């Protein structure tokens, strides 16, 4: 087990490094931050000066070596825009994103498993059709629709919830509800599909012969067997939340890493982009590790 972790950690480190190298060089092909940082009217000298200050005039290789050296010592550079350590900026935002992702995924997972399993239990029945329609709409509705409609209904018309921002627990309700919808739709469908197969297995018959009730048959016997694809998809959805829910963050004024990343990408604030990717990648790598462990825990036949 330990050697498994060691190998995994090493491989992850290498790929993380590869990721950074790739982002570093590719992003530098996409334009000049000086032109964006400075107003359009800025003179060529000013731009040159700006590049000088931020070391953008050196050959890219030199820049990279410098960057890599700094990173090793824990220095992720400064944000061009914000003139603050890039890592601080990112971590500040990431905490919000992490909470948002964790809470949303916890709710989604619970709800989707219950709904998807019940739908599979009576495949083709009323509940199945109904939940399929709801979840498919959820999976394909543009999220800004939901966001704006939710604000208009719940904040402006009913005045139950604040429109946006952070502060109280109430502020979390709308963003989480809107974020909830799409992963819910997707995971319900995956659970349903996987469960239909599991529920026809012979061991389900055994359980019925033992007199086990439908509830445990679905949620104990079949579900665990059906979980492999489900947790994979949960991981995928969680990863996209960890990478930031741009639209939701933008509309609800949620200071997460998604909007930060978009802004930094569009403004070519490379240090922030790199730090953000490093932080989210680390989180995603960790999550994938947990998922791989979950496979082994869920299904004893899978060995490494």
């Amino acid at each position: 087990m330990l050697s498994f972790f060691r190998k995994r950690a090493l491989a992850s480190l290498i790929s993380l490094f590869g990721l950074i190298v790739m982002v570093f060089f590719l992003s530098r092909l996409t334009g000049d931050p000086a032109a964006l940082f400075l107003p359009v009217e800025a003179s060529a000298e000013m731009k040159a000066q700006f590049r000088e200050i931020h070391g953008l005039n050196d050959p890219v290789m030199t820049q990279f070596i410098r960057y890599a050296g700094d990173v090793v010592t824990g220095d992720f550079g400064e944000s061009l825009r914000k003139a603050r350590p890039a890592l601080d900026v990112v971590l500040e935002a990431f905490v919000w994103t992490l909470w948002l992702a964790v809470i949303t995924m916890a709710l989604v997972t619970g709800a989707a498993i219950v709904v998807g399993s019940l739908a599979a239990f009576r495949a083709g029945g009323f509940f199945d059709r109904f939940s399929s329609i709801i979840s498919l709409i959820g999976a394909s509705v543009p999220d800004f629709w939901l966001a704006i409609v939710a604000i208009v209904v719940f904040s402006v018309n009913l005045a139950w919830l604040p429109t946006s921002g952070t502060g109280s627990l109430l502020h979390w309700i709308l963003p989480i509800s809107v974020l909830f919808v799409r992963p819910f739709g997707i995971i319900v469908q995956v659970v349903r599909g996987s469960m239909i197969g599991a529920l026809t297995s012979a061991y389900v018959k055994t359980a019925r012969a033992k007199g086990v009730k439908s509830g445990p048959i679905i949620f104990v016997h079949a579900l665990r067997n059906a979980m492999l694809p489900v947790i994979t998809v949960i991981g995928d959805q969680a990863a996209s939340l960890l990478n930031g829910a741009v639209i939701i963050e933008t509309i609800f004024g949620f200071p997460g890493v998604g909007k930060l990343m978009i802004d930094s990408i569009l403004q070519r604030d490379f240090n922030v982009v790199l730090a953000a990717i490093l932080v989210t990648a680390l989180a995603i790598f960790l999550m994938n590790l947990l998922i791989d462990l979950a496979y082994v825990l869920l299904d004893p036949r899978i060995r490494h």
Partner: protein
Amino acid sequence: MTLQIPDAALIEEPRFIVRMARMLWADKFALCAALFLVTILILAIIGPAWLGDAAIKQNLRGRNAAPFEWDRGWLWWMGADALGRPLFARIIVATQNTMMVAAGAVIISSVIGTVLGLVAGFSSPRVNQVIMRLADVIMSFPSLLIAVIVLYILGSSILNLMLVLSITRIPVYLRTTRAEVLEIRERMFVQAARVMGASGKRIVFRHILPVVLPTLTTLATLDFAYVMLAESALSFLGIGIQPPEITWGLMISQGRQYLTNAWWLSFWPGLAIILTTMSLNLLSNWLRIALDPVQRWRLEMKGRNNG
């Protein structure tokens, strides 16, 4: 001496196509879905030639015309956009691009992802490790960044957009496939195939893939929606498809600011996406049953009862 099985053998099994058609007929939801998709497909092919001109004819006086004002003419029944162009015509014309991007991206990503997943699940730990870490990398590469980089370097076109969107979707298929392969390859019938000398390729494609396929199909149909909406988000940020090209996603993103004043601008393309996703999903659920011998009776029974 032959042991007879009562009755069953007497009826010759009908041809594959006939059987599928019967099973489709049996599931009315799937049938509607199939018809809808066929319509979409036809519109995708003839749309631009048929309504291409109507879709770009501007009329600032009729901007944001409301839907269901029948006296404007049938083209306007969905209303008009901010430049007074008939939404109905635009949706139809946009079908082609939308389908190309969505289908292209989904097909590319699912095929690549699945193949890599099969390889990862079935080959040596080292290859597995390499592929899985690659998946980690793609997964943690924010899709927007890939989009900006690729579209900046290669320029924005339908093809490049397809490419960008498909790269970002590879890991789901990859990881799902691999997880399933890990379990399925331990099953006895896989071992039986190995005993017969079946090559890795055959085992993977003939024995393992069919078991994973239903899950992948479900994912792929849902990804259709994902891709269309992601494309919309990219357009909004100025790195996706841009006018005068049209896609449903672009129409949604253009209608975004009018959501509270002229809801129909983004409603219809949104509805088109929802209906397409739903149809695909209904069809894939139907297919899952139709292709599974253990489940097939559900459809066959119904076919019998109904017809």
